[in-house]
C-alpha cells in the first residue's frame, strides 16, 4: 500500500529548501538561493508557501544596514519531512521487490 506523498514537499525546489534546512539551525536567503540555484522570485514564492503551511519560519532582520531574511525549519516541517521520507521508502521498496 502506497503512502500518500505530501504535495507541498513533492516539488523540486521546496524539497531542496527543506532538505537544506534540516541540517542547519537557520539559513540566510542568499545562502539558500546559492545552494538551490533558484531565482530570487521563485524561491521567495516557494518559501512563502512553506511558511504558510508552518513548515518553516521566516524571520526578517537587519545585518548592519542591509535587510536579512532568515529561515529555519519548524517541528511541523521536520515531522512532515520525516513522513515524506517514510512514504518515499514505501515507493522505493515496492520498486525493488
Amino acid at each position, binding site marked *: 500500500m502506497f503512502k500518500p*506523498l505530501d*504535495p507541498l514537499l*513533492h*516539488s*523540486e*525546489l521546496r*524539497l*531542496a529548501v527543506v*532538505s*537544506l534546512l*534540516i*541540517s*542547519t*539551525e*537557520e*539559513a*540566510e536567503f*542568499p*545562502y539558500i538561493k*546559492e*545552494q*538551490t*540555484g*533558484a531565482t530570487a522570485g*521563485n524561491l521567495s514564492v*516557494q518559501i512563502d508557501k512553506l511558511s504558510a503551511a508552518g513548515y518553516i519560519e521566516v524571520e526578517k532582520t537587519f545585518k548592519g544596514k542591509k535587510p536579512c531574511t532568515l529561515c529555519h525549519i519548524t517541528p511541523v516541517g521536520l515531522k512532515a519531512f520525516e513522513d*515524506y*521520507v517514510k512514504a*518515499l521508502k514505501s*515507493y*522505493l521498496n515496492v*520498486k525493488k521487490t
Partner: protein
Amino acid sequence: MEEKNNMTAERSLEIITEQIERSRQMVAKDTGLSLYVAGLCTMGMAILIGILIFFTTNTAWYLMYILLPITIFAADRYAKRGKPKVPASLVSSMVDKTWQAFGIFALAYLVFGILYNMLMSHFEQPEVYMRMMIQPLRVVLLLMGITITINGYILKSRWMVWCGIVGGIGGFVWESFYVSETLTVWLVPYTHASYIGFAHGIIPAFIVTVLAFIGLTLPGLKLKNS
C-alpha cells in the same frame, strides 16, 4: 532549480541526498577557510613572539598568545567578508566547540605556566626552579593534536586525523625528551648570550609554526579547495 511537481521517488531521494551533501561540503569549505586563517595567524604570532624573545630575552612575550583568539576572530571575519554566511550545522558547531575548548584549556595552561615559572624563578634557587618549572609547550602541543584529530574525525578527513596524531604525540614526545633544549645547546653554547633567545624564542616558535602548518594551515587549505 525549476518548479516541478511530477517527480519520481528516485528523483526526490536524489534531491534530498544532493542538498545534504552540498550542505556538508559548504560547511567543510567554510571550516577549511577558518582553519587556514587560524593556521596563518598562529604561525605569524609564533614567529613574531619568537623574534621578540630572541631580541629581548624576555619570555613574558609568550603572554602575547592571549591575543591569538582575537586575531583569529578578526582575520576570519575579514576573510569571509561579502560572502553569504554559511549556516551553523551540527558539524560546524562541533568543530567550533572543539576549537573553543582547546583555546580555553591551552590558554589557561599557557598563562598559568608562564606566570608560575616567572614567580618560581624569582623565589626559588636556580636548581630548584629547574626541577619545578612547567613546560607549557608540550601539553599545548598535545591538546592541539587531540583537537586536530577530533576535527579530522568530525570532518571525515583521514589526512587531518593523522596530522593531529603525528603532530600532537610527536610534539609531546619531542618536548618531553627536551629535544629542543638539546638541539639548542648543540647549536648555541649554554653560556652564549643568545642561548635564552634560541631556547625560549626561536625553537618553540619553530615547533608551533610547523605544527600549526601541519595541523591547521594544510588541512584548512585541503578542505577549502575540496
